[in-house]
């Protein structure tokens, strides 16, 4: 079967019932009635709400308490493509991958009890990485709530700390309003996951359905107003800066502000560094792009954070992996913080000027206030430190002279073959740092990784969602041998759906990042980090996925080329050096300027 046909499956025919709706609508329009209603079940209402919100794909796993909704899905399968993952966690990560690449809301469906609790890791990941998700869970009948019924769990209670909003529905009539709110909350302002728990009786119950999109909630202000004075102050600081440094995060991507951002840094000649989730907002090769900040970021932007005179943070949240020791983080600099979330201001780093609001609007309004500048001498410092990093680290990563294959050279080959046009999905650990350091990105939304939560097992299912969210793009998942085995069962989903993702496992037979820490900080006591792995190629072949393994450097280029050229899913295992370390590195508790090159 051609996978693209499945992925691009578009609604074809209307059901009879849809025609009925049409007739009713026509009639009521004539009668000038405000809204049409139709008597349907709660579970059908769920589907109709999803369609009204423009959902055409969702990820999930059926079970007792969600069966009525699945029964309706069966009837609507020509309009809504349900992807059966092999574990509910996979459903959430797939929905995340879909959301991150498409900018749309990812949707998950699961049953009560274990089905619902299996969603939690993905929900927590989406919460900390501001990914819009709507998760719908079935719940036991409302008369059984609190009785320790079969597969009953307090999922609203459990998910509260990791959701932007959640709600339990016990009456069918609540479904349209609650789901409308769910989508509005998930996608507006700083996006995030929401969970709606629906009791089984509410799914069966019939009611008069009508749907109205949610446009406002009185207690919720998704985008704070921008203070014009703050914007003027920010512009003045930037105009007077001798050594400005921009650190941008995912807020630029989430705010669809890539063009405005590029215009701002180009006009004022601002060197700009990115957090892991900010990657790809501007092309990797852009001359003002000075690399990644943080623990395993680039040397220049980290060290010069403690030398800049104005630090301009845009849509980022000063995570501890970015700042290192806060006591010695950018103390010499005036700090300007652009963010949509007022709670982020002064949370970790004291701000001199806070510009609240949507990044697109703020940056658009900032642009005319800026003076053109080039900061040539200041840029030279970044170049000098890059040269040092190249000599000490990058050269050996990308052009190794030793026998073992490095993770970096695998990324180099992927870059060459894809021209930087691929979306790269990475898991968590050493390979993730290498991927984010070396992957080339030409367009925005090309870096999909678990940043805040650091969820091993994220990449394989996220790549499925990413490919479905952007079927025309090449999607390459780069995964370590540890994380791969956390959600390896999703190969089943790839097989069943024929998702043409490219999977690269960088196998060092270790939980590499933990091993690196054990080597550096625990006197090489390798407690439970060595992995005895199965034959990954055989496993992939078991799912009818074309697969090969590379052990020698001489075979690497051809293997990467074959993988990218292959029309369909492909698995490539690369045996990399077992005990390689990721450098540079800011050891925990150290200052960004004390970054180690070796």
């Amino acid at each position: 079967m051609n996978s693209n046909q499945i992925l691009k499956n578009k609604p074809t025919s209307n059901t009879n019932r849809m025609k009925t709706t049409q007739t009713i609508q026509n009639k009521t329009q004539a009668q000038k009635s405000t809204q049409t209603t139709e008597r349907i079940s709660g579970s059908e209402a769920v589907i109709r709400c999803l369609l009204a919100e423009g959902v055409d794909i969702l990820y999930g796993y059926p079970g007792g308490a969600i069966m009525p909704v699945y029964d309706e899905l069966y009837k609507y399968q020509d309009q809504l493509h349900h992807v059966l993952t092999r574990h509910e966690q996979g459903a959430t990560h797939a929905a995340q991958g879909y959301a991150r690449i498409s900018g749309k809301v990812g949707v998950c469906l699961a049953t009560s009890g274990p089905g619902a609790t299996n969603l939690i890791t993905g929900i927590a990941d989406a919460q900390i990485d501001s990914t819009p998700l709507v998760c719908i869970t079935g719940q036991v009948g409302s008369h059984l709530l609190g009785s320790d019924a079969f597969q009953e769990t307090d999922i609203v209670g459990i998910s509260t700390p990791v959701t932007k909003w959640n709600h339990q529905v016990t009456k069918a009539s609540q479904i349209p309003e609650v789901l409308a709110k769910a989508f509005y909350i998930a996608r507006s302002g700083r996006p995030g996951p929401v969970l709606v728990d629906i009791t089984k009786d509410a799914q069966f119950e019939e009611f008069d359905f009508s749907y109205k999109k949610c446009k406002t909630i009185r207690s919720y202000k998704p985008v704070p107003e921008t203070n014009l004075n703050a914007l003027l102050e920010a512009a003045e600081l930037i105009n007077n800066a001798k050594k400005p440094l921009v650190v941008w995060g995912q807020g630029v991507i989430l705010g669809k502000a890539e063009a405005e951002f590029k215009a701002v840094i180009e006009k004022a000649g601002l060197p700009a560094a990115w957090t892991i989730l900010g990657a790809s907002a501007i092309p990797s090769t852009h001359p003002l792009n000075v690399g990644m900040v943080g623990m395993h970021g680039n040397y220049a932007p980290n060290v010069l954070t403690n030398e800049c005179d104005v630090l301009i943070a845009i849509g980022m949240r000063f995570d501890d992996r970015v700042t290192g020791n806060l006591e010695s983080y950018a103390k010499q600099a005036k700090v300007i913080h652009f963010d949509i979330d007022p709670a982020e201001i002064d949370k970790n780093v004291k701000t001199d000027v806070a510009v609240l609001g949507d990044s697109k609007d703020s940056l658009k309004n900032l642009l005319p206030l800026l003076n053109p500048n080039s900061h040539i001498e200041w840029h030279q410092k970044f170049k000098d430190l890059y040269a040092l990093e190249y000599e000490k680290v990058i050269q050996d990563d990308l052009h190794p002279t030793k026998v073992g294959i490095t993770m970096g050279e695998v990324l180099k080959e992927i870059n060459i073959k894809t021209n930087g046009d691929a979306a790269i999905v990475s898991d968590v650990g050493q390979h993730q740092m290498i991927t984010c350091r070396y992957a080339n990105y030409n367009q925005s939304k090309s870096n999909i990784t678990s940043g805040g939560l650091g969820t091993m097992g994220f990449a394989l299912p996220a790549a499925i969602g990413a490919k479905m969210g952007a079927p025309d793009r090449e999607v390459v998942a780069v995964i370590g041998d540890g994380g791969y085995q956390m959600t390896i069962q999703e190969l089943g989903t790839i097989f069943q759906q024929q998702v043409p993702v490219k999977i690269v496992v960088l196998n060092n037979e270790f939980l590499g990042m933990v091993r690196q820490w054990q080597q550096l900080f625990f006197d090489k006591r390798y407690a439970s980090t060595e992995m005895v792995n199965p034959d990954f190629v055989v496993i992939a072949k078991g799912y009818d996925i074309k697969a090969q393994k590379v052990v020698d450097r001489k075979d690497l280029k051809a293997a990467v080329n074959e993988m990218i050229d292959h029309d369909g899913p492909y698995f490539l295992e690369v045996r990399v050096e077992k005990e390689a370390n990721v450098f540079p590195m800011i050891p925990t508790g150290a200052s960004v300027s004390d970054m180690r090159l070796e």
Partner: protein
Amino acid sequence: MSEQNTLYTVTIYTENNIGLLNRISGIFQRRHINVESINSSVSEIENVTKWIMVVNLSEVRMKKIIGQIEKQVEVIKAYYHTEAETIYQESCIFKMKSSLLFDGKQIQLIINENKAQIVTVEAEFFVIEKSGKKEEIDRLYRELSPFGIMQFTRAGRIAVTKDEMKISTLLQELQHH
């Protein structure tokens, strides 16, 4: 901003929603902050719930927590105030043995001096009620203790601020938004 711990009265205006207690208490729990008292009630605005919480922490942390509280979708507005900025009351009730009332006038004296009231007298026990400042309640407790307190319950603080809270204006703005 002060790094020293202060007793703050937190006022939170919210929608009346079932899961909010969990959501708000979670914000404190995650940061290991003990909530001294909590009270939830109707407010001066119809369909708006008002929470009064008392917490002991630095202003730096207090501000950050207010930000986290306001971030919750169903929270309309949150404020924090020092003791001096609020007028507040706490109340409590004591259950004591009735026989104490007949063994001299000491108990009566304590009740009068503390401006407390007897709510009811039964054959076996009687109940004293007292509203006032924290210290006043502490004092009454200390003075009654030697006589044997059968039961003691203290309610959460209720408070109003000396300055105006522009919550009604805010709500009107939100509704016309």
